[in-house]
């Protein structure tokens, strides 16, 4: 039986190759289907990786006191009229909160950073305290973070992100060097490790971190501000409640007033992301199923044509001793080969596509998915080839031999 199996594969391959254009057109539906499913998988796997990294940056145990809710449904003018978060409240929170482990005020401003002729514009300048180092997941790669004393004295020291060190110093040592942030001189005391992009949108490495005192003195206070609070992961809900109460107290809100601040955390990102994932997955799946069904119908159709064209061959083969089962397998194999052929082309295109996706955010084509895609194209081949092959197998040899 094995040599017959090999023979069937040979017959099918040569039949597919000798009708190259027809096979290609026939397999197009499968190509698109497989392309859609693998690209979708690649996209989701890439998004997953990128999302996980971004969520690490936010940290699962950090609460962000901000003016805006990250995923709110409030009217923007209502939110816009809220007062800014005052960084001095971080002291109050540190003193009164029983859940807060570390508290760091953050003020941000965007300006250019220069070193000699090298210039990077639109750099995020974050002013914060030494506790920031305890809250953020990112490590200082070279040098050190600023100390409590440096923070208190408003020393002009900076920790620079990877983008900045790459642009201004390339491979040279940056520690101890002077840079200009806006129009002020700062001394580089540390470099942060590479963090990549946040959700593929903006680079987390395009930043400098300086003591908040210096930040508030030198840069406009109109940049946005917030307070980052690290708590125990188990206390997240309690801490949120406590911080809400503390902020209401600080802001002297009456019980009837609504909160005019927001306590953010990473969870809503996850919810939003899950929805995006479902949307991408659903669309991909829909396209895949649709094109596989249409492709399958096309293959069934062309297989019927092939059976018709080769009626005499079928008659001859039967006269020479082929059983119905052997004929069934021959045509089924042909249909499977067309589909596998389409599947492989689809995978090839998807691989090219995954390289393109990869240039936007790191991603790779999941190997298991590629295998599953080939399996899927085989199933399409079997399903759509079944009826034509059955028809071929059931042909009466006498009628088939007489067919012109």
């Amino acid at each position, binding site marked *: 039986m094995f040599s017959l199996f090999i023979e069937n594969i040979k017959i099918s391959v040569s039949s597919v190759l000798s009708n190259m254009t027809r096979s290609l057109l026939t397999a197009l539906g499968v190509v698109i289907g497989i392309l859609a499913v693998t690209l979708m998988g690649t996209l989701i796997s890439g998004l997953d990786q990128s999302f996980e990294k971004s969520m690490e940056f936010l940290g699962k145990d950090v609460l962000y006191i901000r003016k805006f809710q990250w995923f709110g449904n409030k009217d923007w003018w209502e939110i816009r009229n809220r007062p800014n978060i005052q960084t001095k409240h971080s002291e109050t929170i540190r003193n009164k909160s029983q859940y807060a482990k570390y508290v760091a005020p953050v003020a941000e401003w965007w300006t250019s950073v220069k070193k000699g002729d090298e210039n990077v514009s639109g750099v995020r300048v974050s002013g914060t305290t030494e506790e920031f180092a305890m809250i953020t997941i990112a490590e200082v790669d070279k040098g050190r973070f600023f100390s409590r004393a440096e923070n208190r004295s408003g020393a002009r020291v900076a920790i620079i992100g990877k983008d900045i060190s790459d642009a201004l110093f390339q491979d040279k040592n940056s520690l101890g060097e002077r840079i200009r942030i806006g129009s002020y001189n700062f001394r580089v005391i540390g470099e942060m490790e590479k963090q990549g992009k946040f959700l593929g949108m903006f680079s987390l490495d395009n930043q400098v971190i300086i003591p908040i005192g210096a930040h508030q003195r030198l840069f406009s206070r109109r940049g946005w501000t917030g307070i980052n609070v690290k708590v125990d992961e188990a206390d997240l809900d309690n801490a949120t409640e406590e911080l809400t109460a503390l902020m209401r107290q600080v802001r002297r809100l009456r019980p009837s007033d609504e909160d005019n601040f927001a306590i953010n955390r990473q969870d809503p990102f996850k919810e939003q992301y899950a929805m995006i994932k479902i949307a991408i997955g659903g669309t991909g799946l829909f396209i895949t199923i649709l094109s596989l069904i249409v492709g399958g119908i096309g293959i069934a159709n062309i297989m019927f044509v092939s059976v018709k064209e080769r009626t005499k061959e079928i008659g001859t083969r039967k006269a020479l*001793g082929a059983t119905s089962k052997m004929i069934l397998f021959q045509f089924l194999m042909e249909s499977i080969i067309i589909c596998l052929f389409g599947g492989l082309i689809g995978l090839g295109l998807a691989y090219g596509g995954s390289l393109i996706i990869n240039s936007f955010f790191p991603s790779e084509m999941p190997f298991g998915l590629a295998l599953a895609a080939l399996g899927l194209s085989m199933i399409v081949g079997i399903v759509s080839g079944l009826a034509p092959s059955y028809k071929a197998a059931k042909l009466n040899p*006498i009628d088939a031999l007489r067919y012109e």
Partner: protein
Amino acid sequence: MSLIFLKNIYKIYNVGGEEVRALDGVDLTIKENEYLAIMGPSGSGKSTLMNMVGCLDTPSSGDYEFEGEKVHNMDDNQLASIRNRKIGFVFQTFNLLPKATAQHNVEIPLVYANIKREKRLKIASDALASVGLDDRMHHKPNELSGGQRQRVAIARALVNNPSLILADEPTGNLDSKSGQEIMNIFDTLHQNGNTIVLVTHEDSIASHANRTIRLFDGKIIEDVTK
């Protein structure tokens, strides 16, 4: 010993509510190494008889034994197996696979007999050599003349060492010279001990055989042995 034993064979079709007796009580015994020609006008039942003898068809009623095996109540798979092992077919239109080489065409019955590739190639080339086509082994049918194509078909009919060679108008699509060559091959095969059944309407072809039967309206009306 008789190779083929047909007794009281009927093949009845129902065409538009009307009963057509393609074979109407045929008795026929063919012995080993017989060279038989089946003749008759079209519609006489000659093709039906050939299909019956070739195990492509089963009778509506009657007994058919091939080398003692009861063919009349075999299923499709058993018929396929007996065709594969015991009968070599030669068709009027050659029926070669157009995209396959001569060697591959000859190999096909061996594929269905599940014989290993190396052995298949050897048997196929030997069979092609025996019909004088050793130098055309790797040619496709469209690169061969009509006579050569029919010789490939004969080689294909021989590869399984069949008990019976069944030829349906083997010279019908050939010029007289090629036809003569083909008939010489059949004569040789007969001399080597093969049993041959020819279906033809040409007396000159039938004259090669040493026994001729004539059919008319589904009945054997003449059975002459030289």
